């Protein structure tokens, strides 16, 4: 019985309850709960680092009857990324909201979202995953609508309905699995599952539901308006974490639980959709008129990159090479999470300072905020995949194994995506080098600028230059 797993869900949950009951102290309580959650997540990660994986049965009932929580390298890595981003978002939010009212609504929903996210990453039960998905989707849509504009409410109502359709489709798959195998536990299922029409249909239903939530092309239509109209700290969390959570579940199902059911052609189809997402998302990002819309379309493309890994992982036999590719996949996901969070937070500051975020008119504003412009540049480096960012290492390994497994066509996709990414990042950055007088201080508002900067910096420097521990974290976890 490992206490840290239950605490990783309970601590942000209690924070959310206190922030609800005591709205005047919501911000202080929220920050306190954030720090406590980061400490607990650190504890979970230390446990996974030492023991390889953690497992806890809740309610004192063993697997088929009760619910278990589990953490391995993959979930620990994503938990850690989520904690870093969430802490950054929390500190940023404490200086972002101008009205006390918005701030009071933000904290309870935000902490509930964090609890749902941790619960999802630790869940080892198909139905429990559904419950965390519902909590995650509901809080995400409510937070996205906090700006209160008609556009934001409309986009997020659509997000809520799409999310419900996604969870229902997922639940349909769960019902099929339970009907035929009589258990919901991931560990027991991965031993019991046999290829056949039932397992295949269940996997298709669950994947379709999750792909809707992960905004995988062509089911991405809801994402750009929802993410671009949310308040900046919320956009950051939605793009970096919530979308990634649904993709984590796809990964968990395809590589772990349903691994015997997955065929090369199914994995190839996912890769195909990923390739289309990379090209379409990057193209739309290049054509976007607003900075936040650019960031949102770039998320569509980045989810596409993650899907490109599936056919290659499917083609490789278990071994060191496959483990490397798997770590590269996680590295890409972590890098994108941190970089996109940094980019959205920075975009929020630009928008706040200029009163708009139209890319063509941003010149002077960006130049008045050196730290924020630097953040956008760093995040852009990670999105393009330039060295020394984590995504450079990720793309390198991805291209190497595409060559070695003879699936060279993915390299074309990666090359086109990278060129488009470079184009859309430099399109923003070029505006920052006008002939405006340069301000004297690097940082203009520490509370909001520094978290954004640190997140982007982590994605470039820490994940790129010091990615080694990730191999051990994931390798020790069995690497799925």
């Amino acid at each position, binding site marked *: *019985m490992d*206490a840290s797993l*239950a605490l990783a869900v*309970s601590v942000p*949950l*209690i924070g959310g*309850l206190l922030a*609800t*009951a*005591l*709205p005047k102290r919501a911000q202080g309580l929220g920050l306190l709960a954030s720090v406590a959650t980061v400490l607990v997540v650190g504890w979970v990660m230390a446990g996974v680092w030492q023991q390889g994986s953690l497992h*806890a*049965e*809740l*309610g*004192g*009932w063993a697997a*088929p*009857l*009760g*619910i278990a929580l589990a953490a391995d390298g993959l979930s620990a890595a994503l938990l850690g990324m989520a904690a870093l981003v969430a802490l950054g978002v929390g500190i940023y939010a404490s200086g972002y*909201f*101008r*009205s*006390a*009212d*918005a*701030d*009071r*609504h933000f904290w*309870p*929903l935000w902490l*509930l979202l964090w*609890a*749902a996210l941790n*619960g999802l990453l630790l869940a080892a039960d198909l*139905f*429990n995953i559904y*419950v965390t998905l519902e*909590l995650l989707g*509901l*809080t995400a*849509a*409510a937070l996205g*609508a*906090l*700006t*209160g504009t008609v556009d934001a*409410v409309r986009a997020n109502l659509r997000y809520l309905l799409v999310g419900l359709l996604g969870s229902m489709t997922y639940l349909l798959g769960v019902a*099929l699995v*339970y*009907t*035929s*195998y*009589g*258990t919901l536990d991931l560990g027991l299922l991965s031993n019991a599952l046999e290829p*056949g*029409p*039932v397992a295949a*249909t269940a996997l298709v239903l669950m994947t379709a539901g999750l792909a809707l939530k992960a905004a995988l092309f062509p089911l991405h239509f809801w994402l750009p308006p929802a993410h671009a109209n949310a308040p900046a700290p919320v956009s950051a969390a939605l793009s970096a974490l919530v979308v990634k959570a649904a993709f984590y579940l796809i990964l968990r199902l395809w590589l772990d639980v349903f691994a015997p059911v997955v065929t090369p052609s199914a994995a190839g189809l996912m890769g195909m959709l990923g390739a289309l997402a990379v090209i379409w998302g990057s193209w739309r990002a290049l054509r976007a008129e607003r900075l936040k819309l650019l960031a949102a379309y770039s998320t569509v493309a980045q989810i596409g990159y993650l899907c490109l890994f599936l056919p290659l992982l499917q083609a490789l036999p278990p071994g060191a090479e496959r483990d490397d590719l798997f770590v590269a996949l996680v590295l890409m996901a972590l890098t994108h999470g941190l970089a996109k969070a940094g980019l959205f937070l920075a975009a929020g500051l630009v928008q706040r300072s200029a009163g708009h975020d139209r890319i063509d008119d941003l010149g002077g504003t960006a130049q008045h905020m050196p730290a924020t412009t630097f953040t956008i540049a760093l995040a852009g480096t990670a999105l393009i995949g330039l060295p020394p960012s984590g995504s450079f290492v990720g793309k390198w390994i991805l291209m190497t194994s595409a060559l070695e497994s003879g699936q060279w066509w993915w390299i074309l996709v990666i090359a086109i995506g990278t060129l488009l990414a470079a184009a859309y990042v430099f399109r923003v950055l070029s505006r920052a080098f006008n002939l405006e007088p340069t301000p004297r201080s690097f940082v203009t508002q520490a509370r909001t600028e520094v978290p954004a900067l640190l997140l982007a910096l982590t994605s470039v420097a820490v994940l790129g230059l010091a990615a080694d521990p990730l191999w051990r974290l994931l390798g020790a976890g069995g690497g799925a």
Partner: protein
Amino acid sequence: MRRAASLIIGAIITALALWLLWVLQTALDMGAGPRLAEQAFAGLPTTGVSNPVTAVLLSYRGYDTLLELGVLLAALLGIWSLGVASPGFQPAGVVLSGMVRLVVPLLVLTGGYLLWVGGYAPGGAFQAGALLGAAGVVMRLAGDETAGLPGIRAQRWLIVAGVAVFVLVGLATLALGQGFLSYPQAWSKWLILAIETAATVAIGTTLAAAYVGGRPWSHAVVGGRD
């Protein structure tokens, strides 16, 4: 054109539905038998309740229920974040208000009964909470602006009560070295009753407040949006 499109969509959906029905039949034929039902009945004596549904909701899969209560809370917080409630309906006529005076106490009483009976027969926190919520809805329809709910400060404590008691019980058993939500057998019945009572109040308040459809007026003074 439009007609052709809807025909094609209809055909695809029909094919999909037939496929799903066939797969469901295949799944049923795979013969997983009674699935977890036998184990659930076998474990019943140690749970402290004799209603298997309550045992599943509060003991075997209590963690799911805990998060479900969180979903309800999140829904209400979402509603509150969207703005202030519209004023109530007009005060009801003599017949309606007479009926309300009769029905509301009965609803509350029946709710309490369902809460208690949940330990050994169909009933429990969700059913009882739904009745309390219905009492609030009836009062609001009869012109009560607050749907019979207390002030905003008390409401905030009431809506978190369900999750709070649940998670505190979980942490207490964790601190005792039993594991999260593993009730000691001797205490099991009373802990489940305590959780269900708090959940009933929270569900009732949440449903009634959700029907009111916005932040209560007293809070609106703060005003202003970001």
